[in-house]
């Protein structure tokens, strides 16, 4: 089985994880910029991080025959400080021409604050100015519903944003229709303790359809499973879905979305 891991924070993972991904059939990893688990002290920390995900991480993935793509932003957890956020956003343009950069992400909201929303809108403007794809993080737990609504409104309020070029990630049963009904792509994150399980993700495919949707592990430094996508594929097989359907969900759909960037090369 071939598949794409469309949301993974590989800077937080070991080479053993790359080996496991490769052995499970992973051909491509997609790494949005994210929170490091602590707040960085300066924009220089982000500059080094952007170098890591555009220079070093692709080489590490290549050792396991995996193509590596990335996305740039300051994540919403660090967006409460608008001064720092604007310094970081000013760094983004010089990295947008790097060969593995697909767009702006994972932008979004965390606690749904005014500052987070302002920085989200400024990221959306960067994406519009540079004609970039957008990958969006939606908030956790009790904040997800409200945050998803605010994010959808912010994106729809921008006249240059095409929903077909935006994926809104971490949807659950109560937010998937808000995203899909407006023409956006939806990402389902398979986590052991939060977000969705493989069975719930497959349920959502059955309920909301299998177009403009992908599933990912969002594996990072926390409780997460880098092999959750192939495990969900196994669960699909148990339910009787054939190889062609599974390939569409775990390879063709992410390739279709990412392929809207000229930098993405299908395997």
């Amino acid at each position, binding site marked *: 089985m071939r598949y794409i891991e469309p949301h993974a924070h590989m800077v937080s993972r070991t080479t053993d994880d790359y080996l496991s991904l490769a052995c499970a059939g992973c051909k491509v990893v997609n790494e949005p910029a994210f929170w490091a688990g602590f707040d960085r002290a300066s924009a220089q920390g982000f500059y080094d991080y952007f170098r890591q995900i555009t220079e070093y991480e692709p080489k590490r993935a290549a050792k396991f025959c995996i193509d590596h793509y990335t996305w740039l932003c300051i994540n919403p957890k660090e967006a409460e400080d608008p001064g720092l956020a604007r310094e970081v956003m000013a760094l983004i343009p010089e990295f947008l021409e790097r060969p593995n950069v697909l767009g702006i992400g994972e932008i979004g909201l965390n*606690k*749904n604050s005014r500052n987070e929303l302002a920085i989200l809108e400024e990221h959306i403007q960067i994406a519009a100015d540079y004609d970039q794809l957008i990958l969006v993080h939606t908030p956790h*737990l009790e904040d997800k519903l409200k945050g998803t609504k605010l994010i959808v409104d912010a994106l729809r309020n921008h006249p240059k944003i095409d929903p077909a070029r935006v994926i809104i990630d971490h949807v659950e049963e109560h937010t998937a229709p808000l995203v899909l009904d407006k023409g956006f792509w939806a990402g389902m994150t398979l986590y052991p303790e939060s977000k969705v399980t493989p069975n719930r993700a497959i349920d959502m495919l059955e309920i909301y359809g299998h177009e403009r949707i992908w599933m990912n592990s969002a594996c990072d430094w926390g409780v997460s499973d880098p092999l959750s996508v192939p495990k969900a594929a196994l669960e699909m097989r148990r339910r009787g879905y054939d190889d062609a359907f599974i390939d569409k969900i775990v390879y063709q759909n992410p390739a279709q979305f990412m392929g809207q960037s000229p930098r993405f090369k299908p395997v």
Partner: protein
Amino acid sequence: MDARIKLIDIAAFLDRLDRHDQADDYRVHALREAISLLGGDGPGRAAEILDALSDQSEAPIEAATIQGAFGAPNPDSK
């Protein structure tokens, strides 16, 4: 079997909260209300429960003073 295990785990969790005098936590009240939705007619129970455990306000908050989430909206923070 999977659902049976999870159901009993929730029952044991509620028993544990009673035993350790934690049943008054706002998250426990929200959980109990959400559990009552399991008895409704489907489909849509998962979305209903997620909605019940969600902040239903619409305006952005003035400032984010924390970064985490707790699983249910805190009634005291409104």
